[in-house]
């Protein structure tokens, strides 16, 4: 099951798509299935998706470190973002294909997952190669939910809402007894012996309750890992100030129109995606909607050989030694770089890159607030 207690990654909207109701367990399955068939996802990966995955991901790590994972589209997006930061290389289209491929082939309900989505993937490596021991506890969501009731009755007063301790009780997330535990193996004997402080009597728990509690505590540990949580709220800006910046200092209106290309942008993208999209238009969006789907903005290049006509096309590759492009006829052309070969490349996103040195954080939040009003 993909949701974590308190940090639900299945939105109510996803559930409403197929609101069959029924008992809790069925509803959850339906919500997950809804994610897989919702417009945001695709039942079959598109053509070339597997190839893109092989090219982009296998450049740095083994395929099975990825394919042993089971994640939601949003979680895969988060992983892909983090891989890009770590140097993953690919085009806009390739990253979009990778997201489609992973979301459809390795979603939460796909067979063969090692450890299910509740096991901490962290950086998008499989259970055997992710941080922590290979035999780490795999969370049983139902048991963790039962354990949460035990926790609320017996532990919460001293150890706190998320087991992070307080004046009266130890931090259980950081407890070596908990970290060494598997399914109650060390928590059980500890509780049966009584608390070391002896200020409270040992809780009288059955073995089943201890195992449930173990799932709850490990879940709290996993919720501190880097990929566990999401953006909370970034609608803190002033829409009017955002509009003024859009038309004024930011010069956004030079190229964009809120009734043209940006019409209804607030309905199409969620605030995190809007923020990421205008800051890093060549990069990958971070929101639940629209992530990975940013339109490609090709760089145009003109190559002027020492003799002959200049060739203009879409830049495919440029390094110190060669340049490659696709010309207007669709032909692939490459050239060895020499001092006689003149190259003029025009990145249409340069104005966005230049703004990174100019924005204040307030500007950024105001723009998000403004664009979000364009429903």
């Amino acid at each position: 099951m993909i949701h974590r207690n308190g940090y639900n990654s299945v939105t109510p909207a996803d559930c409403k798509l197929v609101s069959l109701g029924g008992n809790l367990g069925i509803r959850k399955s339906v919500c997950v299935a809804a994610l897989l068939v919702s417009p945001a996802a695709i039942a079959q990966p598109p053509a070339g998706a597997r190839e893109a995955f092989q090219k982009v991901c296998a450049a740095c790590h083994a395929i099975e470190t990825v394919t042993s994972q089971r994640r939601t589209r949003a979680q895969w997006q988060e992983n892909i973002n983090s891989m890009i930061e770590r140097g993953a290389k690919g085009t806009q289209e390739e990253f979009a294909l990778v997201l489609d491929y992973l979301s459809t082939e390795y979603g939460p309900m796909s067979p063969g997952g090692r450890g299910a989505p509740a096991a901490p993937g962290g950086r998008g490596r499989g259970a055997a190669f992710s941080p922590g021991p290979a035999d780490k506890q795999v969370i049983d969501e139902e048991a963790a939910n039962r354990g949460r009731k035990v926790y609320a009755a017996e532990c919460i007063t001293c150890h706190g809402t998320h087991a992070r301790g307080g004046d009266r009780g130890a931090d259980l997330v950081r407890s070596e007894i908990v970290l060494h535990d598997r399914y109650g193996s060390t928590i059980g004997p500890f509780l049966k012996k009584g608390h070391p402080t002896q200020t409270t009597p040992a809780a009288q728990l059955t073995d089943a309750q201890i195992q449930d509690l173990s799932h709850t505590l490990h879940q709290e540990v996993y919720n501190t890992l880097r990929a566990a949580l999401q953006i909370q709220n970034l609608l803190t800006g002033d829409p009017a100030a955002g509009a003024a910046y859009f038309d004024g200092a930011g010069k956004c209106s030079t190229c964009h129109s809120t009734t043209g290309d940006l019409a209804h942008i607030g309905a199409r993208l969620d605030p995190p995606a809007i923020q990421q999209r205008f800051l890093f238009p060549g990069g990958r969006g971070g929101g639940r909607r629209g992530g990975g789907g940013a339109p490609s903005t090709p760089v145009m290049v003109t190559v002027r050989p020492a003799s002959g006509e200049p060739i203009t096309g879409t830049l495919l590759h440029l390094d110190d030694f060669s340049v490659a492009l696709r010309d207007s006829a669709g032909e692939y052309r490459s050239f060895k770089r020499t001092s006689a070969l003149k190259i003029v490349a025009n990145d249409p996103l340069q104005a966005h890159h230049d703004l990174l040195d100019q924005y204040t954080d307030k500007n950024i939040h105001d723009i998000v607030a403004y664009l979000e009003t364009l429903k």
Partner: protein
Amino acid sequence: MKALAALLLAGAALIAQSAPPVNSWPTYNGDYSGRRHSPLAKINQSNIRSLGLAWVYRANGALGGGGGFGGRISATPLQVNGVLYFTMPDHAWAVDARTGREVWHYQWTSHGGDHIGNRGVGIYGNWLYFETPDCNLVSLNLKDGLERWHKPICDLDQYYFGSMAPLVIRNHIITGVSGDDLDRPGYIESHDPETGDLQWRWYTVPQKMGDPGSESWPSEEAMKHGGGMTWLTPTYDPDLNLIYVPTGNPQPVIAGKARPGANLFTASIVALNPDSGKMQWYFQSSPHDTHDWDATQTPVLFDAEIAGQKRKLVAQASRNGYFFVLDRATGKNIVSAEYVKTNWSKGVDSKGSPIPNPAKEPQLDGALVSPNQGGGTNWPPPTYNPDTGLFYVSASRAFSVYYIYDPSDKPEGWGGNDRGGWGESMIQAIDPKTGKVKWTHKWLDGGRSGLLSTAGKLLFAGDGSGNFVALDPASGNPLWHANLGNSVTNGPITYELDGTQYLVVAAGDTLFGFAM
């Protein structure tokens, strides 16, 4: 094998003045200084265009993140007596340094751990040492790769893992620990080379209130869980008998609300006595870091004249975008300067440490920060060239947005992250006397590799397009390249055998040997 031990010791004795021995590469950095500058000049500016491929070794046959298809060699190979020794997570190889033929391959059966990379081996006498992702120090027989023993160096259940190349100093095998997932304390250890027994352990964060550094933490609870992992092989000055240990970022990584203060000795350069593990001095590169900017970049040792005075120096291009030069006997700061433009500090304090701007700490609604989480640079080794007097580093100028995900009063683990980004990559040549960038060579397609400089007036690097490139160290102009089909993933090395100078570099899961 006494000869080899003697050779290693001789190498150690040499380093204060010079460079790696020409016929071997016996430590992670070639010598103890971390300069990665070779006195070899048979390959030089005048003949570099005829440098060609001598051999290829593909380290396959290993599954998963440890190698095989898609695996990555980030280790710097050691070369001793004509054999190269290198690792990937769970694997060690011995390969003929003249021909690239495999001598042996050792595979460790893993119990998990982060397989993000392994930096290589340490060698003492006829024994080899390396760390495994599941927290073991393994000793192998150099001649056949058979295991002698393995000893635990950390607790996998606490999400520690091993990745550092052990450092050998006399009868000390120095090991570090990796892992920035859970809130655990970092430490560095010394082990007996014969038995693996612990000689000493030094925690990078104070263990009780009143200890030095504890004044920079709000509570014992916070500092005992305060991180500061020892990801990278230290450097060593035999005359001062000090090792220079670069330490990792504090925990919790992003959400630092419950650890107000500078959080010593995280994100610092710390000078320790290798015999006792006692701290001599520290310098903090990133006080109260909240951006995952560890300071685990090589502290490079060299001597230079500063204001008319000959000084023993240590320099670091740190992940936070700052370049530091310190007196390596005292830790006193001499130079602090940005080597890429950043936007997160309010200048430097009286000790030379940057002052973090609270507005550029991660925020609920996001803060646009440069550099990004990857940093102005990262673990790939830099080089210092005594001929040009310049310090060279693979650098990035990059932006991302840092978010707080967990707004509670006691966030743990990460509690936030950064997202998105735009950036550009380059080689920066820095004058360590001033901290000024002498020249910049921008890569047009990314790139972040380890570096090597040689007396042949050459600087070796990798770009983002799979090219292994030789640059002019005076200007940054490219002089030669070979496309390896994969970006350079380690620090290149060089050595001479039978009168031939070799260059060895890794790209992905493959090791390439070049020669005239």
